[in-house]
């Protein structure tokens, strides 16, 4: 409720009401000599009522007066009746001042004329067979503020001001909400979002904020795109010399025979490493720029994970490592099977690489609400908590120790993250209780019935 909209609305409306009340109040105070018409009207009513009450009491006694009061009792007066003994006949509590006053009149036998003093009428009324009653009527002028409510127009004014304030608050906050949505989208990685002309066309500060934002987004997009283009071009250009290098290397091997076999093998290994790196960089830049056209198919995750696990087992066996899987069947997602395969494979291979020798890599797949949750857990050294977020950055290396031997994380996890994001999912890493790294991949399940994948493979 107390968001900006609520605040603006309440503040403005409140201010309007207080201003109106203050104006009415000061008018009433300053114009003291001049009795406001409403009070005058109320006073006339009061005098009329007093005359009538006197008549009712004189003719019908206290009981009749009580009935009259219930029926006609006006808001503008208070009524007290004292019997000949000086007791208030309606049993009302009498203000101390009035009690003294009534005692003063107790012995007075003569019914005097009706007179008013300082808004109070005291009248002696003889009731046949009972004696002399005294009637005290006190004028209750309405508070100046109530004055306001006697206008039928006030309610309209109130509603109207509410509408105006509502509109004002809306007018001020809705562009901010729109801006916020766009900022969130940008923070989420969509560099192509702009606030749009509806906002930038405004001539006020919000309009300039919108224009500045769009300029910033534009610049950001340009920078990132040019960076990616550079990376792509460099990788691309590196391929030709690398291909020639490898061909030359092959020729050198053919011609020298065993003479420099070790060295050539070393060169070959490094060339292959370069080759892999270039391939990954190109994959990532293609994914990031969305150049790579993607297929859209229904993918059975359990089947995909099984094939990844089979491949990984092959690799894991070399270090005495094992790969186990616990998979829930019939979880389907929509997406590019190759891309998903690569994403999950990268995570699993990474786990195989970092789990301790002789250790396990655990793969699990289950449904969590409308998402498929894929967890890959290794029993390695884990990753420093501060580095978890950056694990998915390209070429991220955590700590000195693990990178030299293993070559660091390279681009595999960055590719995985990008691929998962392209499928509307997210990927996170945490240190599993008991040691080791756990990577959770969440993918939105296909809206299609999960059972339809049943026929495949059984």
């Amino acid at each position, binding site marked *: 409720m107390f968001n900006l909209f609520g605040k603006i609305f309440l503040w403005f409306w409140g201010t309007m009401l207080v201003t109106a009340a203050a104006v009415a109040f000061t008018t009433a105070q300053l114009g003291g000599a001049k009795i406001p018409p409403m009070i005058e009207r109320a006073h006339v009513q009061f005098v009329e009522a007093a005359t009538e009450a006197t008549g009712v009491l004189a003719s019908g006694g206290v009981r009749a007066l009580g009935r009259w009061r219930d029926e006609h009792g006006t808001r503008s007066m208070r009524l007290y009746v004292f019997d000949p003994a000086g007791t208030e006949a309606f049993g009302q509590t009498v203000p101390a001042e009035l009690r003294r006053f009534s005692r003063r009149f107790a012995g007075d036998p003569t019914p005097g004329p009706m007179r008013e003093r300082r808004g109070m009428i005291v009248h002696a009324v003889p009731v046949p067979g009972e004696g002399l009653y005294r009637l005290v009527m006190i004028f209750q002028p309405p508070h100046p503020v109530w004055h306001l409510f006697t206008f039928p127009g006030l309610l309209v004014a109130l509603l109207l001001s509410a509408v105006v304030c509502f509109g004002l608050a809306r007018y001020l906050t809705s562009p901010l909400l729109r801006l916020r949505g766009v900022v969130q989208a940008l923070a989420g990685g969509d560099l192509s979002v702009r606030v749009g002309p509806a906002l930038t066309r405004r001539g006020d500060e919000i309009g300039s904020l919108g224009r500045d934002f769009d300029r910033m987004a534009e610049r950001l997009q340009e920078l990132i795109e040019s960076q990616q283009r550079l990376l792509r071009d460099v990788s691309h250009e590196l391929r030709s010399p690398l291909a020639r290098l490898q061909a030359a290397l092959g020729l050198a091997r053919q011609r020298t025979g065993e003479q420099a076999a070790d060295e050539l093998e070393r060169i070959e290994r490094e*060339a292959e490493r370069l080759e892999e790196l*270039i391939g990954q960089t190109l*994959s990532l830049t293609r994914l990031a720029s969305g150049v*790579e056209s993607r297929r859209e198919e229904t993918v059975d995750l359990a089947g995909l994970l099984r094939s990844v696990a089979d491949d990984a087992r092959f690799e894991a066996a070399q270090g005495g490592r094992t790969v186990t899987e616990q998979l829930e069947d019939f979880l389907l997602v929509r997406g590019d099977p190759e891309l998903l395969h690569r994403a999950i494979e990268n995570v699993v291979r990474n786990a195989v690489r970092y789990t301790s020798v002789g250790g396990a890599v655990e793969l699990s797949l289950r449904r969590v609400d409308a998402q498929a949750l894929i967890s890959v857990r290794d029993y390695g050294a884990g990753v420093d908590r501060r580095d978890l977020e950056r694990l998915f950055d390209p070429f991220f290396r955590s700590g000195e120790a693990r990178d030299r031997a293993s070559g660091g994380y390279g681009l595999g996890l960055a590719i995985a993250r990008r691929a998962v994001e392209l499928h509307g999912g997210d990927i996170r890493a945490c240190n599993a209780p008991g040691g080791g790294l756990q990577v959770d991949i969440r993918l939105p399940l296909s809206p299609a019935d999960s059972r339809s994948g049943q026929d495949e*493979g059984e």
Partner: protein
Amino acid sequence: MRILLADDDEELCDMLGAYVRREGFDVDCAHDGEAALASALTGAYDLIVLDVMMPKRDGFDVLRRLRRESLVPVLMLTARGSDVDSIVGLELGADDYLPKPCNPRVLVARMRAVLRRAGAETDDDTGDLQVGDIELRRGARRVRRADEVVELTSTEFSVLAVLLESAGRVVGKEALSEQALGRKLTRYDRSLDMHISNLRRKLGPLPDGEERIQTVRGVGYLYRRTED
């Protein structure tokens, strides 16, 4: 064995040509798509090694045109880092692919594997297979579905032949790769899956609407017998 090496990088072509020649092949080079297509269509070659990126006509285009007239074995050199290239290549009927840059040793091994299976089947004209509505004639390297010829590349033909020989039984991925592709199954290799999906597409489903070739998770593939 005559090989056509199509790559726009002349220096690379020269070196690869020299390497491949030393391995005992006859090699010609083409440096653009037009030249490659023209040479390939002469029918003088046993294998075409086709780079995707070439001026005038790209490798995909050359392959597409070539496949209209010829089933000559084609090994695509695809851009490393682009799975799409390899998939498109295999879909268009390449027999195998190799990401470029590549090790020339690996290239020659792939070339031999492709040539081996292309050669093997032409020699052997016994053992025609008939499974359901599919008829496979090894000698003519021809496959008919319900008397209608289905055009398959030699790799797809080999994969189908292996599957049909064991129709109704599961064929392991390793065995299928060795028998049909002529090479060991490498880790993270998706080409077998691609050939299978091409076969599925070209052959269509069984008359009862089921998939002909079923994936048996973690094991391999199975060609389904309709009698089952």
